[in-house]
C-alpha cells in the first residue's frame, strides 16, 4: 500500500468556506509541521480536486452542505485512486465527538496509523474551538458597543428633559435599575423606546 504505512508526510485537504477559520487552521497545521496542505474555499469540482491532491486526510467544516457529496465519493472508490474510508473505528468515538462539537468532520484514508492522524485532529479541533471563541468574543464586543450607545442615548434624554448633568443622569439610571432588579441597559432601552414612541 503506498504511503499509508511509510513516514512520507501526510497529505491534508482542508475544505472550509470561512476565510478566517481557514487561515487559523492552515497556520496551525503548518506551524505544527504539516506542510503538505491543500486548502479549498468551496467544494466545486471536489472529485477532481481529491483525485489530484490524493489526500490522506480530509477536513471539512460542518456548515458545508457538500459534506454529503464527500460521503458519496468515498463509496465510489473506483474514481478516487485509493479508497478513502471514514473514521469508523469505534474506539475513537471520543475524538469524533470532540470534532463534531468543534464543528468539523474528518475523513481518513483506510489503514492510516492512528498515532499519525491524532495530532492533526487535535490541532484541527483546537483551532476550530479557538475560532468559535473568537467569533463569540466578537459578538460580545459588538453587543457591548451597542449597549453603551443605548445608555449614552438614555443619558442624553434625561439630561435634556430633567436638566441633569451626565453624572446625575447615569446615577438615576443606575438607581432605577437597582430598584427594579434590572440591568442598566434594559432601563435605558425602555426609556429610549418610550421616547421614540412618544415622538412618532
Amino acid at each position, binding site marked *: 500500500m503506498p504511503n499509508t504505512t511509510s513516514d512520507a508526510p501526510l497529505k491534508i485537504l482542508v475544505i472550509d468556506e470561512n476565510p478566517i477559520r481557514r487561515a487559523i487552521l492552515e497556520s496551525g497545521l503548518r506551524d505544527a509541521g504539516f506542510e503538505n496542505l491543500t486548502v479549498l474555499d468551496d467544494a466545486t469540482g471536489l472529485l477532481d480536486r481529491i483525485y489530484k491532491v490524493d489526500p490522506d486526510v480530509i477536513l471539512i467544516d460542518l456548515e458545508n452542505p457538500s459534506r454529503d457529496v464527500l460521503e458519496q465519493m468515498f*463509496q465510489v472508490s473506483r474514481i478516487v485512486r485509493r479508497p478513502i474510508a471514514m473514521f469508523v473505528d469505534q474506539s475513537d468515538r471520543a475524538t469524533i465527538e470532540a470534532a463534531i462539537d468543534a464543528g468539523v468532520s474528518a475523513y481518513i484514508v483506510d489503514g492510516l496509523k492512528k498515532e499519525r492522524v491524532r495530532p492533526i485532529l487535535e490541532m484541527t479541533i483546537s483551532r476550530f474551538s479557538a475560532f468559535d471563541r473568537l467569533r463569540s468574543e466578537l459578538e460580545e464586543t459588538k453587543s457591548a458597543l451597542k449597549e453603551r450607545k443605548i445608555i449614552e442615548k438614555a443619558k442624553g434624554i434625561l439630561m435634556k428633559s430633567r436638566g441633569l448633568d451626565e453624572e446625575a443622569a447615569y446615577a438615576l439610571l443606575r438607581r432605577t435599575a437597582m430598584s427594579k432588579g434590572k440591568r442598566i441597559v434594559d432601563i435605558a432601552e425602555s426609556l429610549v423606546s418610550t421616547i421614540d414612541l412618544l415622538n412618532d
Partner: protein
Amino acid sequence: MSSLATARKRAPYLRIGYIPLADAAALIIAVDKGFAAEEGLDVELVREVSWSNVRDRLNIGQFDAAHLLSPVAIASSLGLGHVRVPIVAPLNLGLNGNAITVTTALHRALAEHSDGDITDPKVSARALAAVVAERKRTGQDPLTFGMTFPYSMHNYQLRFWMASGGVDPDEDLRLVVLPPPFMVESIANGHVDAFCVGAPWNSVAVDLGIAHILHFGSEIIERAAEKVLAVRASWASENPDLVTKLIRAHARAASFIEDAANRDEACRIIAAPNRVGVAPDLIRRTLDGKLKASPDGSVRSSDRYLLIGRRGAARPDPVQAAWLYAQMVRWGQAPMSAELLAEAKAVFRPDLHDEVLGAPPAAPASEPVDGVGAFDGPAFDANDVAAHLEPWLIKRC
C-alpha cells in the same frame, strides 16, 4: 423570568434535527402549533445543512431525535459506511414526496425516443436507455443524475427505474450526490441533466422554466418510506414516555396538516423563513398533490403525493425496511444475510406506534398488496430478499 424558567429555556427538553424539506412538516407543525408543548415537551428544532450532520449529531447524542432518510436509519443500525449506532423509527414522517425532474433538453430527447406514454415509467426507462445509447454512439458525455445521499430512497428509486429500462446506473451514466438546496442551481447551470429530490425543489426548478417533472416517486414505488423520525435505540428504551409523547404530538400535527381546512395556516407555518424557508405556495402545491409539471404550466395531480398522515402513512412498516435493505444489497452497499435483514426490519417499529395510537384497521384496498408496489418485477416478499434480487440483470451482488 425565574432562574428555573431561564434554566429550562437554556436547556431545551428535546433537540430535534431536521433538513428544510416539505416532509419535515409534521415536526414543524407539532412544535409551532403547540402540539408538542401540550404533551409537556419543550422542543427545539435545529435546522441542518447535510444528512451527514443530522446522522452524526443524532448518533453522538447532540440530537434526541431527527428527521432522517429512512435508509440512513437502517445503514446506521447495520454499521454500513460509518460507526454503528442502533436507531429505531417509531414514525414515518413522509411517504412519496420525491419526484424525478429532468432538464427541458433531456425531456425533449426522452419524448423523441419514447415508444408510448412517457408518464409510464416502463416507457420512460426504455426511452432513457435509447438516449444513453445514442449519446454513447455519438461520443457525447454520459448523462449526470443528481440525488441526495447514497443511502436514500431517491438513490434507490432512480436506480430501480433506470435499471428496469436496461440502464446501468454505475456504468452508463453518472449518479452524483447534491445537497437539496444546490439541485436547482445545478440543473440551471448544466451540471446535472436530471435529479431525484423531495419537495419543494422539483417545483422550484419547474417554476424557473428550466425543467420538467418526469415522474412522481409514487409512479416508481407506490408506497415509498422516504423519511422517518429517528431516535437512538438506547434513547427509546430509556425514555419510553418521551417516545409516547412524540408519537402523540406527531399524530395531531399530521391530522392537522392533512385536513384541507387548515391548509393555508399549515403552509404559512411550514414555509416560514426559519423553517423550510420558501414561498408558502410551493408547500401548498405539495400538500395539495397538484404540481406544475412543465414550464408551460401543465399540472399533474396525484392523491398519492406526499403522504404524511393519510393512508396510514405514519405507521412504520418493516416490509419497507426490508425493501430498502434489498436495494442496499442489490447495489453493493450491504452484504446479504438473514441476520442483517432481520436487523433492518427491526429498525421500523410499528409496535411503538400502535401502543400509543392503536393497531390500524386492515390496509385499505387502495394500497399495494405487497406493501411496496414497485412498477416492475414480481411482488416483494419481505422474507425472501434473494427472490427479489434474482430476476434483475443489472445489479452489484
